[in-house]
């Protein structure tokens, strides 16, 4: 897929999502008008209106460039391509497997903490994360896991006085 095609898909999705929000979600999940001041739906409507207008403009602009067969810079960026890759954004393809590998253990951490407790769950999580990040030394991984979990445990329990998940 070319970048202009991908951008087209993204802007169509944003525009469709905005329309759904304007027509259904915002009216359905906003409080009724109390009779004074601005409506509760005003700011959400303005926000989504901005998104819809900008997406449509982007689609029009990309379509005109695509059908006229013009070649040139990918957008109106004033920033150098080198700069973009160094700090402004990380444009590129997604790696869903990579995302799943890291997000799933993170999503499971809190339920597991509530089930087996902070320290065992934290140590297991740290070991898994280190393995996924390329750590293969068991002793080093265990020491890091123990250190990080105990430092955070002491900080949260005794330093900040925060009740730990599941406690």
């Amino acid at each position, binding site marked *: 897929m070319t*970048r202009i095609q991908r951008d087209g898909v993204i802007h169509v999705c944003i525009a469709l999502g905005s329309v759904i929000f304007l027509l259904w979600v915002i009216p359905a999940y906003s409080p009724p008008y109390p009779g004074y001041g601005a409506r509760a739906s005003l700011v959400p409507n303005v926000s989504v209106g901005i998104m819809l207008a900008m997406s449509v403009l982007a689609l029009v602009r990309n379509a005109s460039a*695509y059908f006229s067969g013009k070649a040139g810079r990918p957008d109106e960026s004033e920033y150098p391509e080198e700069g973009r890759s160094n700090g*402004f954004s990380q444009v590129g393809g*997604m790696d869903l497997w990579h995302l799943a590998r890291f997000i799933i253990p993170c999503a499971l951490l809190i339920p597991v903490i509530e089930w087996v407790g902070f320290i065992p769950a934290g140590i297991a999580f740290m070991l898994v*994360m280190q393995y996924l990040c390329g750590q293969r030394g068991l002793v080093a991984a265990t020491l890091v896991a123990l250190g990080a979990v105990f430092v955070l445990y002491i900080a949260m329990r005794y330093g900040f006085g925060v009740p730990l998940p599941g406690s």
Partner: protein
Amino acid sequence: MEPIVAGLLDALSPVTLLFVLGGVVAGVAVGAIPGLNGPMAIALCIPLTYYMSPLAAIGFLVGLNKGAFYGGSISAILLRTPGTPEAAATTWDGYALACQGRGEKALRMALYASVSGDFLSTMALIVVAAPLATVALYMGPPEMFALICLALTIIAGIGTGSLLRGLVAAGLGLLVGTVGTEPVTALPRLTFDVYQLDRGLSLIPVAIGMLAFSEILIQLERRVRRGGGQQSAVSFSAEPEARYVSWGEYRDSLRTILRSTAIGVGVGAMPGLGAPVASFVGYDQARKRSSKPEEFGSGRLEGVAASEAANSAVVGGSLIPLFVLGIPGNLAVAVLMGAFMIHGMMPGPLLFEQNAQLMYGIFGSLIVASFLLLIVGRLGLKLFCKAVQVPAAVLYPIVIFTCLMGSYLTESSTFDVKVMLFFGFLGYLMRKADFSYVAFLIGFILVPEWERALQQVVIASQYNPYLFLTRPVAVMLMLLTFFVVLKALVGAFRRHKYDGVETAAGG
């Protein structure tokens, strides 16, 4: 004159110095950790100050706040994960410098710019507090509404190359910021019957997800694609040129530092606009006024100096309305105001009359904290540089664990962890699709104030839009906003020629 001398001598007493030093050290450490920030640290440390004298307590908390502002730049430069939201602009050039092996130099420039901005803003607080606060006093809801519109428009152009994409992201940020209890009716809005959303989304999990967690996901993805190895940010050059900031380099950035300091003081003095706005505006101005704007974003010391001087200058600036009018300028100062009240003081003009010695003692502590920050930053720099030479396989899991627990820490809520994960995923998608997460976050942060101003305008005008015409400053700001948008859009349509290059990853 006597209260001034007595107050300054109080600030130099060993006990006060010790507490201010403790505050600065703790602040730098807290700021450097993604997920922990100045306001949170102040709130957590207020109970500790019960046993201190009022001057030591306020000195400690102010030191904490100042330290956190600089500390945020450390992880921003070395890991590209801003420890605090205001350090986000520092990542653009700071991280690029770190990738070039000049991370230590970037850290030093961040320190010098922070201390310069902080010290000058403190002097501004002492010298010109009253006149600046008087200007802010004349700002009513129409001006505030117009000012936020302008700020959002300017910010939408930063962080990504496209204003269209920036505005889409800002719109999304505004939308997400409206989730929660609606201010007029006090009824839930866009909560989808999820009761945890009734209180709205907290900034901390959203910011950790968007800024830190999504960044770690992307850095890990790159690392896996590269087949492991040390991340480039932690490779420091041994060359003195790549480590130290020369006087000439500081002098070259001095104009930027002074400009950013003025921006930081001005933004800080305006209630509602915080350090993130100051740092982005400071950075944007530095880029626009530079002779080499194309080098910004690819590792320019001036970029680091602009952002850091601006956000550190907010500390002094935000205290102006607090001390003169009793109005907190941002979240950190609002928490600080609570500390004043706990110690039996009500910030405002009367404080100068009733507690003149204490006020000058606080001013003295602010100056002392600036110098202590310089010392702590310089002495600790080596330690910070060594600390980041930790292998990625060790560092990233710790950062991820800290992100998760940092989100939980905000309100001891596991729901916030889920929020952080969701916004981490959203941040990953936005970065991949080149939408500005910065514009998103600023929209999210500014929407409550924006909506409050809008409601006040609507109620005061009774739906009469001509109210704006009676407020020339508001009209001017709105016209400026329309001009900025129109100019960018016309320019975009004129210049735009899309290429059909295949995406690198085939995405």
